[in-house]
């Protein structure tokens, strides 16, 4: 980057807010998905909305692509830097600005850690509902970009359900307010589109969240089944009985072994484990829990435990939440996959995963938000063995194709990012993708905000038939025409 631009950026954020040395830049070359790495030209650490605006204005003027980054825990390469671009890290914008209990609203900066929101309002018995497994480190800004879910979104919904308003710096540096503390602002629900847009529509610099009152009672049941088929049948029966638990999680034997090795959650060694959490008024929970137990027994659960204390509940969840990392105990390398299927397709899809796994000679551990059909198959491999990594990647893609064929989605909560954009045309038709990009063109016609993510083929905004004129993105080598 030209030194005059570096100087101008330094002027904005101060010397301590600018990283340009190669060694330090390596920290930012990837997010939680480490197989993609790109070294940014510079990393900026603004501490105010104004600084973000100034940085983005410079980027806009100089046609420099930028990538906003929160805690960098994303699993789809959404915060992967782009060639010749800068990273705008929002970790210094980490203040909880306002807590309004009577309206159940909290206003935060994007760098605030997910769990810290709950931490702040816990004394008044409120909580912030979206709970991705990384909640102790991931940021709200990142959650907004990815529309993060978590185990409890079956009942409570996703990040988008809990975001009421956003202050956004657009790619030209201007500031807009989408939604607000008060719901139903007149106009298009641009906030609804922004949440989950993976940093491609601008940078959220202030977020208004809804918080939820803690339920009177929470009970977690753990049931051991001979196989995922019986556990899956139990899930269907719970839903058919008209219940909406706070969470229903499933782990297969390999995932159980991994969790046991890592955190000693004291799980029974079984073919499939179901974890069902009910919350609400005590009498209601007691009545429904009896029903859940009965359904599990009927579907051949051979051991059922109900966590009796918060400590027991904590342990049960610890095993589940640590499952991804725990797989490291039983395999040197693994790919975390994220796909969604209609719940009823579970037996078929599991059978197919088993078949593909045997065919490829690779083990697959399954961790599953069973209530909403969100699968996390973990493909285990050993990078040192030639051909293993490629085989694992191929298997992982095949599993996503299974999800699409079953009428599901290529991602339930990790996002498309860099990783899955090649899968988008398998899930959506060309007109579908082209229509989505109309939104992109309205927000960011230059396509400077996290370009080259989500869409396999960026639509050049203002594309009109006629004489060929090179788009700035083409000359910059970011996009090409096909």
């Amino acid at each position: 980057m030209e030194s005059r631009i570096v100087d101008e950026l330094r002027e904005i954020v101060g010397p301590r807010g600018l990283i340009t040395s190669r060694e330090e830049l390596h920290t930012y070359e990837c997010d939680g998905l480490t197989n993609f790495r790109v070294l940014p030209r510079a990393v900026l650490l603004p501490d105010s909305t104004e600084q973000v605006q100034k940085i983005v204005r410079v980027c806009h003027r100089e046609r420099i692509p930028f990538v906003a980054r929160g805690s960098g825990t994303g699993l789809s390469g959404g915060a992967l830097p782009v060639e010749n671009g800068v990273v705008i890290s929002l970790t210094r914008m980490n203040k909880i600005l306002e807590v309004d209990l009577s309206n159940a609203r909290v206003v935060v900066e994007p760098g605030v850690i997910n769990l810290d929101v709950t931490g702040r309002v816990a004394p008044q018995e409120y909580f912030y509902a979206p709970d991705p497994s990384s909640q102790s480190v991931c940021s709200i800004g990142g959650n907004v970009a990815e529309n993060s879910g978590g185990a409890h979104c079956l009942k409570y919904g996703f990040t988008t359900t809990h975001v009421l308003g956003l202050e956004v710096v657009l790619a030209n540096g201007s500031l807009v307010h989408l939604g607000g503390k008060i719901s139903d602002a007149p106009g298009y629900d641009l906030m609804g589109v922004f949440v989950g847009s993976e940093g491609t529509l601008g940078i959220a610099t202030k977020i208004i969240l809804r918080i939820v009152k803690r339920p009177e009672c929470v009970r977690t049941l753990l049931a051991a089944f001979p196989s995922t088929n019986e556990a899956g049948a139990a899930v269907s029966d719970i839903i058919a009985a008209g219940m909406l638990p706070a969470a229903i999680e499933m782990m297969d034997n390999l995932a159980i072994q991994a969790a046991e090795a890592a955190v000693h959650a004291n799980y029974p060694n079984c073919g499939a484990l179901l974890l069902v959490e009910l919350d609400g008024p005590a009498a209601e929970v007691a009545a429904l829990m009896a029903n859940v137990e009965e359904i599990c027994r009927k579907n051949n659960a051979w051991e059922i435990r109900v966590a009796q204390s918060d400590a027991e509940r904590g342990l049960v969840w610890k095993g589940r939440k640590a499952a991804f990392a725990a797989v490291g105990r039983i395999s040197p390398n693994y790919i975390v996959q994220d796909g969604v299927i209609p719940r009823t397709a579970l037996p078929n899809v599991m059978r197919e995963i088993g078949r593909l796994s045997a065919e490829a000679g690779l083990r697959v551990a399954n961790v599953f938000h069973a209530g909403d059909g969100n699968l996390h198959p973990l493909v285990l491999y050993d990078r040192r063995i030639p051909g293993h990594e490629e085989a694992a990647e191929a298997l992982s893609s095949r599993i996503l194709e299974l999800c699409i064929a079953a009428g599901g989605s290529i991602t339930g909560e990790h996002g498309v990012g860099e990783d899955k954009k090649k899968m988008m045309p398998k899930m959506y038709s060309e007109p579908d993708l082209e229509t989505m990009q109309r939104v992109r063109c309205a927000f960011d016609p230059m396509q400077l905000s996290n370009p080259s993510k989500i869409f396999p083929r960026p639509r050049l905004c203002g594309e009109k038939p006629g004489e060929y004129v090179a788009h700035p993105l083409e000359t910059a080598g970011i996009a090409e025409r096909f």
Partner: protein
Amino acid sequence: MDASVSSKAIANTFEADVREIVTVKYVRTAGKSDAVAGAQPSLVVEPGSEQELAKVLKLANAAGLAVIPRGGGTKLEWGNRPERADVILSMARLNRVIEHAWADLTVSVEAGCTIGKLQETLAKHGQRLALDALWPERATVGGVLSANDSGALRLRFGSLRDLVIGATLALADGTVASSGGKVVKNVAGYDLPKLATGAFGTLGVITRAIFRLHPLPKETRTISCVTEDVRDAQRLVLAIQNSKLAHSALQICCGGEAKPRVDVLFEGTEAGLAAQVEQAKSMMGSTITDAGKDVWSAREEVCSAEKTGNAEFAVAKFATLPAQMAETMETIARLSVAGLRRNIVAQATGVGCARFEGEASAIDSALRELRAEIERGGGSLVIAHRPAGITTLDAWGNVGDALPLMSAVKQEFDPRRTLNPGRFVGGI
């Protein structure tokens, strides 16, 4: 050839082409009852499929004709008067429930299906779309989505944006695009179903939607109580919200000289309800009335498009913070002193409806003053119905600094302004 002759020629060609597409039977000349907020269209077209609809739309777009999509027509007068109105695109024939995947708690439905018919289908498997929209027997899926209409159940289940998981849109240029899908959890691509929700049909015509569903409750109980005044009512509502009760709906009704009433709805198992009702009663004190389930039709009464007697009337939707509801209701009472009758229903979410009856000019000034006051607090007042003579009052009010962005989105989706021109915010 002068301009009027040429536009007539275009219209004639269009009509002939449309007859080819949907057959003669489904094209007719528009009558007086097809007028939209005073704007008279010339043609009513009823496509029989998504493809037919897209073709009609594409032709209209090419011919520069303005298209007004219409479902049950229950909320057609909401929004501003259209700048132009040529073709009514009726969704009446796109009315199938495509797939009720009850074991997956989802439903895929065509936009012209009424909410009533949808709920009836879902109930066969003990499920529902957890939405109490206005006039479900006539209102359609597409209309309810486009107008973003939700009632008291929103408190627990969210509004349409939280229930819709997939949508198919026919754009003005004939593009048919889907986004979202039939799984509840899905973050692949932009969330266009949310963009279409509440867009008043200005970005595209919703042809299909997919919703997440909820089980029908086993038991329900409604309890109501009369409060001293709106401050007292708000205190009670905030206390209930701050309690650990798991209520599904909570509203304040007040109108005329009657004292405000607070209604709370519980849904669940018999065992669970008994304990909750006891707890709620202890919070409500001694003025509990046995108002029954009918209280939940209060919103329909307030929003009704029927005149009471000869008086002019207006209906407006307000949105404030939950803790500002009393203030808003006091403002409405103060502004109603000048011979206006009022009726209000406000949900615990801070969203409510107000009805004013009386002289048109008094209603006009009350609405303007009320909007100014609510907007000062960061809220909004949207006019759903207004007396015939009041034309200068914008239906939407202040949109804030995102209006240029909204216009840019409109420009990308419908650059020729074919769909519902002028009806939405900021002249969109």
